[in-house]
């Protein structure tokens, strides 16, 4: 076991875990942030996607010891109240079925839109192809990403 200090959703968190523990399990078991989901444990499904310094990363294969001072954002930290444009779009389009994959889908989409506010279909496909949805919500996700892009631009104009 070893002590690590992490920066998660803007808060400093001290944890005492084995150094090879993936960030996913630190979040879920040590910190109690269970919004980040476990689907495969081998970077094959995207359910565990979080932002590390703003970029989408698979937390299931990211050992806590390699995190250093990087800032981690989880689904719980994307917004305080579900008001992030991607979350709003997801609600509006009624995307989730079982819901298990959706935190990962949302985090991948938020990272995409932060970089490409007006993504093409091909860019959406590339950014999300690693996020599996067993329930088959892909067609609604596609619509929701486009809607989120619109909302992001509208928010930008309002600001």
């Amino acid at each position, binding site marked *: *076991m070893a002590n690590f200090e992490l920066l998660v959703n803007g808060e400093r968190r001290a944890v005492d*875990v*084995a150094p*090879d*523990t*993936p960030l996913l*399990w630190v979040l*879920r*078991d*040590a910190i*109690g*942030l*269970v*919004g*980040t*989901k*476990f*689907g*495969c*444990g*081998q970077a*094959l*499904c995207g*359910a565990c996607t979080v932002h590390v310094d703003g970029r989408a990363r698979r937390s299931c294969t990211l050992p806590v010891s390699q995190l250093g001072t990087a800032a981690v954002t*989880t*689904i*719980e930290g994307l*917004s305080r*109240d*579900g008001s992030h444009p991607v*979350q709003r779009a*997801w*609600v509006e389009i*009624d*995307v*989730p*079925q*079982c*819901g*298990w*994959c959706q*935190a990962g889908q*949302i985090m991948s989409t938020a990272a995409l839109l932060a970089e490409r506010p007006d993504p093409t279909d091909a860019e*959406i*496909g590339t950014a*999300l*192809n*690693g*996020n*599996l*949805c*067993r*329930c*088959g*919500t*892909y*067609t*609604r*996700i*596609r619509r929701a990403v486009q809607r989120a892009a619109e909302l992001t631009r509208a928010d930008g104009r309002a600001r």
Partner: protein
Amino acid sequence: MTVRLSRQQVLHATRAGWYLFEPPAAIAAALPLTRRTFLRVSAAGSGGLLVLVATRDLVSASAGAVADAPFQPHALIRIDVDDAVTIWASNPDMGEGTKTSLPMLVAEELDADWTRVRLENAPLDRRYGGQGVGGSDAIASAWLHHRQAGAVGRHLLVAAAAAQWGVAADVCSTSRGVVRHDASGRTATYGSLAARAAELTPPASAALKDASRFTLIGTRVPGRDVAAIVRGLPLFGLDVRKPGMQYAAVAKSPVFARRAVRVDATRAMAVPGVARVVEIAGLPNPTHLIPGVAVVADSTWTALKARDLLDIEWEPSPFADESTASLRAQAAERLSAPPEVLHNSGNVDTALASARHVVDATYECAFVAHATLEPHNCTADVRDGECWIEGPLQMPASGRQVVAAAIGLAPEKVHVMSSRIGGGFGRRLMSDYAAEAAVVSKAMGAPVQVVDSRSGDLQHDYYRPFAVQRLRAGVDAQGRVVAWDHTLATCSRNAYRLDTRPPSSTELYGSYVGRVKTVQELDPDLVPTHIPNARLRYAALSTGVPTGAWRAPSHMAIAFAVETMLDEMAAKAGRSPVDLRLDFLGDTADVPSSAEGYTYDPARMRAVIREAAERGGIGGRAAAGRGRGFASHFTFGSYCAQVAEVSVDASKRVTVHKVTAVIDCGQPVNLLGVEAQVEGGIIDALGTAFYAEVPIARGRATVANFDTYRLIRHREAPRLVEVHVMPSRRTPTGTGEIPLPPVAPAIANAIAALTGTRLRQTPFSRDGWSLA
């Protein structure tokens, strides 16, 4: 005063009370009780759930005075004096929308204001009615029960208002949580009537609304958990966290379902954080509990890591040499002399000999895993002779029985709360993971969450049965199908679960087989009612591979064979595949089709087929380079027909441009939910048709993770899925499984139209096909 509760506990808090799904000792520890606190603690209902009704200032300091007795006309409903309406979501939601659609039934008849209705997950308790979900029948079974609950509530509220105003009840109306006396314009909110209504005796039943007066049923209603899902709030089984909870991962025999004969846990125990190793004996019925060895640790990661360090010798298996190839060889042998003749009319052999065209084809469908994205998990807390189970259980009532058997408790000592379920597809019909958690928790004397890795989940599933079918069919010179000889050789789910009914009874559209007297009693899709010479035979394969229900069980394999064969017949006869099918349907209305009581109406099937053919452009010309394929199927009481439009490149990569689907599921309850089920079901079936296979070698499953067990991806999904829901006022039937069976045959028929190649096995990837 302050009360500290875990997030999970807060999740079960209602406005005026907490419904804490915890052992009393755990609650006592969490609640620093003071004399100012008014608590009523009671073991309510048959579930023995501990219910705390606390003063509201426990939950919110800003709330007003202590509530008067709330009005609870039925276990599903509660109306507080401040107009808060709570409806209990009685059945678990796996993504099929029951958490929204079932309470909608209550709210519709209650005339509650849906936008202000609160929903609570209900623990297992017979006061809520049947609480399982499966066979796409959640809506159908709740249809009258839940509406009655709402209607009785509304009846009492109206009676209370009428008494207060001194008027007759039948001159009062209700809307959005308000009773109104139409002549005087007086109004009273439901909350203001709660105390008075609570004193009235509920009638045994109350009049239900006529469908023309529905204001909620039949509309598009967003899922009620969506706002919580997009924020990552803890809703699921794997999100359960209990004070003092430990984590366990279970090692199982790679050759299926063997017991450990020697366990060396030295290396596992040496991992820091590992507490103990617990052996799980298993139950006689392998669908209840499979033997294993659990490692208990202080975190999921440690448990999973240490589990892989166990050195275990497993007892030998008679199926240690089994493989997909050996099953195929066995099937070939069994197909030539199938023991069960389920139907035989006319003279098939003569008819085949004299038919104008005959097609003789063999179809193979691989073992398929459920691969629910939320892996195998459950949390149990066994202490003081009682057990609390919380997790993704699709069948909480049978889960209770299995858990009770596994740990030797009376079923009434087992309390079950189903969480939101991260995908079911049939896997959560079993409760083996609840039994695992209970066995380990009992050994530890502490709450335990059992978790499996993806590879464990894929390698120890109850798979969709491997199925081989031979179909010989013949058309005459007029293009009519005159002979139909269908033989199936499959792994029988029924045999695997030690059921005494014939092995075929789970493999041929449910339990109607054995009751068959005439061809009319067979499922009309299986043996079209107008084929004069028809034979149906079945053989079960001997296997050690665990099998279970997989979304639209047995329908998938059979629809693939039947619907591609019909297409082939039409092509041979030079007829439209739609006309050929319409010929079959005949005019016999309401042919009883299965023991589940569903009724098959050829007129509804015909309407769905025509609608889909027209919307999907069957008979018209596809754009250059594109082909269209048609298929239809009757599943669990609902009707679905589809047209797939595809193109294919030189390396067998298939682009699915569009799938047009028409469904008749009776009165749609939540249109948005029905559409979601059809869209998602088509995408699921598409990925399964192209990629899903669990190969068997040396008696074990040779899949490891999503690299070797491939799921459909974003870019591969159809460019467009068009869903049309037939308007209907008939009693609703299901939607969760209905859209799947037509997908594989519609795609195969489209590929055949375009290339002339007939696909006869799933997954299509076996023959080199993939999705573009």
